[in-house]
């Protein structure tokens, strides 16, 4: 009885975890190197950027919105920060300004959606192009490269053998989980996505909440820019193309409903890890990148089909 209850309440989460474990075992069977500590840390590190962006997308998608501009905002925040670093601004200041650029772009999205009453798809589609153009204009289309070893430590350093990006990712996930489950902002995120009209009539400041949530998504894109710039030792105005789709995929594989009102941060982490394991494992097996795209796309579709089947079974 207890097991049955546990299963029916967490079938979705268990399903994704089983998927992740199954995939890992599959790759391990074909390549023993897959399940080594160094490869697993490698996967976590490679996953970290997508995983961080996916946190913002999870919030946005739970409100029944979408954010297509995360990749472009990341590129824009990255080049602004890089130029400041090269102008010898203190690292922490450059990073803060980079995060602010991301947050600001996100807030513009939020204002257009809340007060301009634009559909999120349109607003963030526009921002996707505007931020990309701004990044290209800012650098005249060229990358900005070469930073101090202190800055590079963010992506290449280790603390107790754990790569710094992995630590940052874990901290972001713990914070996001806390916000989503333990604060008013989190509760209102679910409420707005579940029933915006009822939320409004319950005295929730829907416009403000949406603006904050899109701002948060922009800020996390800025954080992703810090990690990417540090890892590549270069900020590229064309970075992050298609990152929005990977992040949406991570959230959706993790059980966040595009209809809004449903989703969990832990699910998104597993979703992002599934994407990372797939990429890493297929690389180890020497599968061509063309076939990889087909496999990843199919996994997204299958995950959602299974999700819908489970939900239908429950009802």
């Amino acid at each position, binding site marked *: 009885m207890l097991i049955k209850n546990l299963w029916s309440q967490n079938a979705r989460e268990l399903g994704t975890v089983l998927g992740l474990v199954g995939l890992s075992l599959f790759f391990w069977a074909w390549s023993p190197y897959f399940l080594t500590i160094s490869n697993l840390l490698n996967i976590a590190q490679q996953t970290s950027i997508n995983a961080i962006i996916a946190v913002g997308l999870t919030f946005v998608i739970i409100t029944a919105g979408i954010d297509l501009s995360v990749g472009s905002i990341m590129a824009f925040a990255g080049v602004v920060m890089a130029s400041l670093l090269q102008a010898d601004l203190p690292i922490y200041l450059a990073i803060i300004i980079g995060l602010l650029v991301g947050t600001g772009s996100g807030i513009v999205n939020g204002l257009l959606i809340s007060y301009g009453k634009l559909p999120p798809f349109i607003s963030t589609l526009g921002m996707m192009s505007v931020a990309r153009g701004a990044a290209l204009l800012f650098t005249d289309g060229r990358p900005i490269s070469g930073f101090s070893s202190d800055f590079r430590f963010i992506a290449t350093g280790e603390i107790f053998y754990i790569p710094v990006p992995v630590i940052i990712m874990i901290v972001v996930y713990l914070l996001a989980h806390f916000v989503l*489950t*333990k*604060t*008013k902002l*989190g*509760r209102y995120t*679910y*409420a707005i996505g*579940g*029933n915006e*009209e*009822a*939320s*409004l*009539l*319950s*005295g*929730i*400041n829907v416009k403000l909440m949406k603006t904050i949530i899109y701002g948060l998504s922009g800020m996390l894109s800025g954080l992703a820019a810090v990690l990417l710039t540090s890892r590549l030792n270069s900020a590229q105005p064309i970075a992050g193309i298609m990152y929005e789709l990977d992040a949406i995929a991570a959230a959706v594989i993790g059980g966040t409903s595009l209809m809004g*009102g*449903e989703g969990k941060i832990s699910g998104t982490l597993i979703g992002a890890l599934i994407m990372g394991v797939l990429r890493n494992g297929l690389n180890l097996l020497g599968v061509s990148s063309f076939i990889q795209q087909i496999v990843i796309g199919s996994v997204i579709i299958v995950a959602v089909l299974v999700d819908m089947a489970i939900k239908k079974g429950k009802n």
Partner: protein
Amino acid sequence: MKTILELKNIRKEYPGVVALDDVSLMLKKGEVHILLGENGAGKSTLVKILSGAVKKTNGKIILLNEEIEIKNPKHAFQIGIGIIYQELNLIPHLTVAENIFLGREFSTSSGIIDNQKINSEAQKLLDELKVKINSKSLIKDLGIAQQQMVEVAKALSLNAKILIMDEPTSALTENEIEELFNIIDKLKAQGVSIIYISHRLDELFEIGDTVTILRDGKLIATKVISETTHHELITMMVNRELKDQFPRIKPKIGCELLCVERLTTANRLSNISFTLNAGEILGVYGLLGSGRTELARAIFGVDEILSGNIRINGEFVDIKSPIEAIKYGIALLTEDRKTQGLILELDLQKNVSLASLSEVTTNGILSNNKERNLSEKYILDLNIKTTGSQQKVRNLSGGNQQKVVLSKWLSTKAKIYIFDEPTRGIDVGSKVEIYEIMNRLTDEGAAIIMISSDLPEILGMSDRIMVMHQGKITAKLSGEEATQESIMHYALGEHYAN
């Protein structure tokens, strides 16, 4: 006159509710047959059955001496039943002709849509109706009345022998109504039978031949219009046994909590003034479109107020959003709990705390314990039948869902409660429980505005009654002087003399 359609002993049950009980009706060729009844009397259900939107539970439908089963809306068209809904079903960015022949386009021999033929056929139909509409105009450029004519033309193009019109004049001006009545006369002359639903009594006497009165899902009478009177119709609409199901206690009326003066909004309300005292229940009665829900939304800061003012505890307030309304101690229990009151996918405790989250936080962090305690208090207090505070509200029954919405507002400790249709669609047992809660609230010094289209409820629970018609207050009555007949007269915009 020959009978074209006969309904025999129609019954329709929804889970827990009987919407139609043993209703029979005869429709003759070329007549205008009026369906009359309060909101919830069963008119819409009857129309839905004829349109194939819902299936009857029992009974027979006989069309031209042949028993039929109406399978779906398309089938209804095929057998000659056309329906013109209150909400018109036209596509705004297509032309009149394209709308009329939507899904039945003529094509040329090469398989391409034959626009010329569509336009000319549509024009022919419109000309036959003698309406001045160009078949190539876009729907969005037409007025509501003209759009209705297009719907009529569409129904005729489907060879409709029976036309159902659901409150066709509710959005029309005097001239447009005249135009519509001309068309109805022409249709009658062509032998088309019309089932006509309306609340406007004068109108019924002008165009109706026969009238059937429904009440609480039951057939009350069928009368020839020329042999009846306004007064008789109203009496038949409302005259029911008042059962002893309203436990209203004698109120302890306190000082004035709310005063609304000359309130006017962009959407219908004009010059609304009234007061509300601590300890009292003010019943607001009005038919569909009377502005009763708009009144609630205006006070609660949802709809914009154009002029007039509101005082709470004697102080002028300017409420621009529900957030501010809640701060002033107002609560709004909305008409439709599923679309406006609840977050169905969230559990009971999260719905209860939604409007008062600050009460269940410690230093800004939500406390699961406090939240559970809050909801468990109301589960006990209001007798909510649930598996626990973690149950999704989607899986609760209507009455229990309503109690969850009530709990949400009780936990804001509001002083002024606006209840819009508080007992709609819920079982009798829960109804009485909700009335008991209203008693308790007023006993503790709160005040309630109870909007309802349930006359016995209005009479049984209100200390004072306010009747609305087309955005205006048409009467203010004390609980003692009001009767079902007098309220209905005012709700229909008629004058009432004893």
